């Protein structure tokens, strides 16, 4: 079994907070340690504040190859010796990257904590940068990426989120196209490793049964021995959402010959700063519009019309856009393409009742409590907040602030921020069937850009 504890990819993909009760390491890097005796093992995360978004576009996917090379252990151990060592320590080491961060997580029972951190430091100091290891990792990542091409929703989201924002660094999650993966060289890997996994821009976190002070000392002795580089926080370029707004809808069809099912994704660029009361009002609005089967979209398109299994709308976690997503068979696609804008337009005209807003507040409160139940969840939120420069107060006061939301505020948000006009529409399916359906939905073929999966950048 692969423990969830060591996996923080989802948060890295999503796009920061000042640390809850940080102390400083000897090089002034923050340290956020938390004692949680319910965990059988201690996990330390070294957070490097440069992510896949900083890797040149033509080299996207490089971090996946790099992390696979790192996964094979330090150069002074064969891969077998390395894995056997981890196995007997009941530990694990994982490397991961998102748009703004890369991370190294080290997990082991308390008695093996120093050993696992020592091994992590050795690995970071001398990875296996040889031709054979590189070729093997590259082949593996390419094979894996090729298999993902069969997943229509993966391909749709992969292309759409990048394309709608001009391949901005905040949309680059570390995955790359087959084109870019094939062109990556070992020399590029070495160079990018030095940039991405640089201790100058790393801070440290830990959670588990070991007292944080003890973990801190251990991390210092293994990673920052001697004259450690002074911590230099990284600044990230913010995405200017307004540049990507469109007065008319740009339609892109991703061809999948023979597909019997179509994928539909609307993206509407609309910046809402994530740590504001307005963002909370937006959460309530989207709960009512797109929250599962009781949301307007689910109720209309699935419950009442039986057009799809799933229809939802939500605001992206980074507050860059709002999206509506659904899928269905060829016979249902026209109804879905027309149905989403119709439901949204109708929603914009509604007068919401206090009771309905109160129901949505209750639901969001449940979601928030569920998503922050464990100390580990809260640590991940702090890491995300810090990466995106968000106020930690927002997180701490969320439950109080969500209760302050009133119908008039939600309706104002809906009318100002949720419009089905303009934006981007991405559909995926068989073009011979989809083009006539798009035309019937008001998107003539001359306005539809058809792309082949193999051509996607």
């Amino acid at each position: 079994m692969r423990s969830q504890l060591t996996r923080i990819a989802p948060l890295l993909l999503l796009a920061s907070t000042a640390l809850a009760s940080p102390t400083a390491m000897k090089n002034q890097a923050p340290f956020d340690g938390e004692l949680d005796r319910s965990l059988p093992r201690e996990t330390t995360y070294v957070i490097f504040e440069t992510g896949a978004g900083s890797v040149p576009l033509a080299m996207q996917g490089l971090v996946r190859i790099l992390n696979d090379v790192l996964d094979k252990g330090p150069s002074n151990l064969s891969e077998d010796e390395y894995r056997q060592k981890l196995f007997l320590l009941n530990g694990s080491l994982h490397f991961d990257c998102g748009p703004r961060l890369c991370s190294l997580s080290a997990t082991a029972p308390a008695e093996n904590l120093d050993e696992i951190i020592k091994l992590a430091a050795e690995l970071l100091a001398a990875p296996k940068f040889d031709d054979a290891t590189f070729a093997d990792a590259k082949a593996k990542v390419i094979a894996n990426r090729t298999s993902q091409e069969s997943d229509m929703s993966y391909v749709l989201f992969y292309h759409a989120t990048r394309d709608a924002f001009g391949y901005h660094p905040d949309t680059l999650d570390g995955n790359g196209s087959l084109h870019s993966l094939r062109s990556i060289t070992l020399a590029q890997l070495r160079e990018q490793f030095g940039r991405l996994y640089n201790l100058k821009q790393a801070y440290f976190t830990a959670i588990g049964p070991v007292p944080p002070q003890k973990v801190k000392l251990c991390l210092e002795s293994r990673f920052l021995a001697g004259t450690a580089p002074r911590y230099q926080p990284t600044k990230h370029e913010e995405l200017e959402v307004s540049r990507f707004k469109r007065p008319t809808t740009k339609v892109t069809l991703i061809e999948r010959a023979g597909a019997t099912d179509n994928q539909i994704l609307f993206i509407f660029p609309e910046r809402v700063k994530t740590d504001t009361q307005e963002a909370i009002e937006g959460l309530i609005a989207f709960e009512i519009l797109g929250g599962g089967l009781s949301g307007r979209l689910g109720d209309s398109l699935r419950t009442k019309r039986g057009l799809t299994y799933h229809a939802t709308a939500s605001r992206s976690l980074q507050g860059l856009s709002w999206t509506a997503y659904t899928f269905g068979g060829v016979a249902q696609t026209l109804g879905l393409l027309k149905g989403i804008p119709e439901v949204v337009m109708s929603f914009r005209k509604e007068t919401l009742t206090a009771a309905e807003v109160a129901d949505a507040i209750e639901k969001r409160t449940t979601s928030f409590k569920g998503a922050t139940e464990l100390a580990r969840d809260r640590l991940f939120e702090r890491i995300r907040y810090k990466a995106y420069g968000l106020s930690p107060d927002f997180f701490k006061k969320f439950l109080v602030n969500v209760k302050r939301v009133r119908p008039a505020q939600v309706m104002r948000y809906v009318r100002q921020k949720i419009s089905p006009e303009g934006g981007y529409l991405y559909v995926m399916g068989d073009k011979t069937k989809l083009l006539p359906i798009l035309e019937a939905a008001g998107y003539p073929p001359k306005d539809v850009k058809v792309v082949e999966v193999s051509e996607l950048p």
Partner: protein
Amino acid sequence: MIKIGLTLGLFGLFLQPGVSFAAALPKGVKLLKEVRLRENVTATQYELPNGLTVVLVPNKIAPLTSVYHWVKAGSLHETPGVTGIAHLFEHMMFRPLAPSEPTFFMKVKKLGVAANAFTEFAMTVYTSTVPTKNLHALLEIEAARFQKLKVTTALLDLERKAVWSEYSTKMDSSPRMDLWEKIYRVAYPNHPYGWTVIGFREDLEKIKADDCNRFFTRYYRPNNTGLFIAGDIDSARTLAWVVQAYGSWARGADAKLPANYAEKREYAQAEGKVKSPAHQMLMGFRVPDMKVETSAVADVAQHIFFESDYSLARRRLLQRLRFVSVISPFNSSNDSGLMKLYAVPTAGHDSAELRDEVLKLGEDFGKLSAAEFTAYLRQYQVSTAEGVLRNDTLNEEVARSWGRYGDIAEIGKALAKPPTVTQAEVAEFAKSYFVKDNLVVVSTPSLE
């Protein structure tokens, strides 16, 4: 996915039923068992006079309450001609009880409930997470749908379309899902496993409202159902609410699983129908249904051979031979009947090569030292404990312990210490089941 199950009794894990609370039980309610899960968290199992199993897990640090209804009604309970009805019926449980009523989701909307459901081979499970202050109200709504649902033709036809959408998206477009469906069809041609949970497409069109109502009347009975409630609850008060809401639910006939598959064993291979740019394959070994007395060995074997980060399959195929870019266990916590391994071969390697290497994993097991075997057992316990940190995942594993192995004590044992399984027992299991004439291999068709 969590592994649960041990063979030998571990003294001291079971608590004697609490005398003080037992004395205050509602009339007719039996206290059956108390099992320690972790520090300050104990699961207590009761049975109502109508046969409803109720398990309460007070957990003061949980922010919300998790409610699971585990109904022994899955695709294994279906009959030819109406395959897929268990899953279709699961969908209908979210529809209105009567045409004039709101849907389940509309009813629970004001309670801040997050709800879902899933159908498996042997059961259908309904899950809800609710603020504890609204638990009473939720239980009343839940109890009503479990007792009074009436499927109408109009609502069924509407929901059927949504299931078509699910069918089309999963089975016609996803190579993985297609392989999953195919492997059961090939491995179990004359057994309900063969039509998998989704059922035969042609049957889905033919199922009538009466079929659904008969299925509901036959299987949705208190004696076939476990109700699991974990969170910041007051046990006495919660139990009283349960008795009030579910006490009048009439007992029915017990659900029975079809006989275990006992056909002659035979190696089989086949191709799926959904093409993929990368070759993908699924291998499965037929295994007997889990029972308390055999589950521990099977679970440990699965952990060591297929599931651990350091599984023998990963070591041989991914790390040593580099024949695959991906190798992982497949849906192992949900499916029964087959232990499955999903793989994406790297260029130049095919299904036959992978199959032959998988059949050598028994040799690798034979070379494990005692220290390595012990490390696997310790790892197994830690991964189980790390998988139940959340209140709802803990509740699910308590429910799974009851539903799959028939005893909530299994999860208590698995959390308390490493399994007491011997290397010889696992070797014997592998020798019996991880062999070619018990193997089924399916792969994606070539693109040409």
